[in-house]
């Protein structure tokens, strides 16, 4: 577990997709998606249900590998290296590209063990180092003050919003470079949503974040770049401010002004 070294200036491209097409069996989920994800910026993926934004997100850390019948064409680069090239270990990719899911999915264990899980499976044995990293991660997820006295309690006893921040802490604990978030605030109440959004803005200085959201206001609030997906295709990708104020594609304008979706 060495300290992650960051390369290039902040505006550098961290990940990029080149003509990415994903099929589940015969059904095509996304087609010919090409876009760049900037280093230490927040990129949000928006679009109506079933538009392929989650599929695209999950292909960024090869999580679709485990789905029966899923196939990917095209290339996805992480720091210039094709993560789907033969001989690439998907586990190594996932250690660098972490993920937070739509529904909080803490393990049925203690708060502490949830955050320590990633470190333990990576072979970390030093109890002090683990304890230190757990605290750091919980602080980074703005959860430390709420759980510091109940680290040994079951994670399932936390509230929904706390569970989701615990999942963020768990993802951050292994120090990934990229953090993928699949509608992280869709299953929690507005106050918890506000906390998670604030957290995303804070994490932005250390992590490259890609967030899927169905909430356009959320995309506008938290992200630097926004990609609009529809029917499996990337319709428009731009700086968030420009995409929301001066979209160049009529389809995008229709969506963000609420004419469909």
């Amino acid at each position, binding site marked *: 577990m060495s300290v992650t070294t960051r390369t290039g200036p902040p505006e550098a491209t961290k990940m990029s997709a080149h003509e990415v097409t994903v099929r589940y069996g015969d059904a095509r989920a996304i087609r010919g998606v090409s876009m760049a994800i900037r280093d230490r910026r927040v990129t949000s993926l928006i679009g109506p249900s079933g538009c392929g934004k989650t599929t695209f997100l999950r292909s960024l850390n090869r*999580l679709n590998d485990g789905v029966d019948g899923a196939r990917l064409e095209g290339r996805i680069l992480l720091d210039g290296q094709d993560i789907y090239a033969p001989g690439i270990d998907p*586990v190594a990719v996932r250690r660098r590209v972490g993920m937070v899911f739509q529904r909080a999915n803490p*393990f*049925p*264990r203690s708060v502490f063990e949830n955050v320590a899980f990633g470190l333990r*499976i990576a072979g970390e044995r030093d109890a002090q180092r683990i304890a230190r990293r757990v605290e750091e991660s919980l602080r980074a997820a703005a959860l430390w003050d709420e759980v510091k006295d109940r680290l040994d309690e*079951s994670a399932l006893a936390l509230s929904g919003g706390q569970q989701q921040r615990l999942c963020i802490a768990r993802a951050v604990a292994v120090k990934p470079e990229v953090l993928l978030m699949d509608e992280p605030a869709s299953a929690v109440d507005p106050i918890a949503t506000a906390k998670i959004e604030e957290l995303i803005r804070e994490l932005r200085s250390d992590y490259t974040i890609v967030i899927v959201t169905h909430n356009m206001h959320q995309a506008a609030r938290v992200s630097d770049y926004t990609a609009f997906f529809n029917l499996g295709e990337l319709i428009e990708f731009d700086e968030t401010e420009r995409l929301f104020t001066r979209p160049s594609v009529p389809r995008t304008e229709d969506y963000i002004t609420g004419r469909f979706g």
Partner: protein
Amino acid sequence: MSADREPQRRSHAAPPRGLGFRTPRSHRLVEFVIAVVAVGALAALLAIVVFVAREALPLLWEPGSLADLVVPRRWAGYDGPALAWQPVGAEPKLNVVPLLVGTLKVTVLTMLVSAPLGVACAIYVAKLAPRGLREWLKPAIEVLAAVPSVVLGFFALVAIADVVEATLGLTYRLNGLVAALGLSLAVVPVVFTISEDALSSVPRSLEEAALALGARRWQVVLRVIVPAALPGLASAVLLGLGRAAGETMIVLMASGNAAVVRLLDPTSSVRTVTATIAGELGEVAQGDRHWRVLFLLGLLLLALTWGLQRLGALVISRLRRRWSAENA
């Protein structure tokens, strides 16, 4: 069901005049039939317990020492006190301890084989095997559960006994180990089926959480799925244990049936409680002391399997509560 009925009742809160509140007759009839069937099942169970107990209880007041049933005694022609089950002869020896030892020994041996094997198969089939292989393996193992136990007993008697005899160089061909291996053929599918269910019902979201943290396949299985399914796996083993203790035909055919009291020697012949009842009840005079002791054995067996069942149910309910806590 009551949740379904609640809103319906509310919608009938103010019925038009002349429309009664009575449930239609046809519905009442259906509910009555269901109740009769349910009560019938319970009554049958109760009747079994009462019948078995009625035959066993006179042991308490009829002539003959109760202590002789459990305590070693120096029988005529014996060098010292012994636990013996020799119900036929000038002096019937009806000590149940050798039979309990036999059942305990066969059951423990069976579970030592079946529990790890059944759970390991389930882990492989549920979580590690490629999809195509899983679709073959699962029904294949489950079909084993449908093989009549007399066929398994025959197989143990002929095939397993040969292999064990040749491998270990034994004097007595039929023994506890052979019976336990034969019994495992019946118990592994039970453990497998329930374990496989428990493992498959661990939410996929937990698996993905672990994968996204950089866990390897085996780490996901051993550190996330198995711990989460542990209560289910425990109840699988308990149900297998119940099957092992209650199974009759396989042990009757393959165990050698001599009531030898050697708890720690797996290769001595054993006589189990079930095989004794099956083998002797048809040839004993009704109302005889021997007859009564066989029913006492039946009662013990009933209590044992019932206890295991309760334990299993307890474990399952704990499993359910654990997952519902997550969904809350």
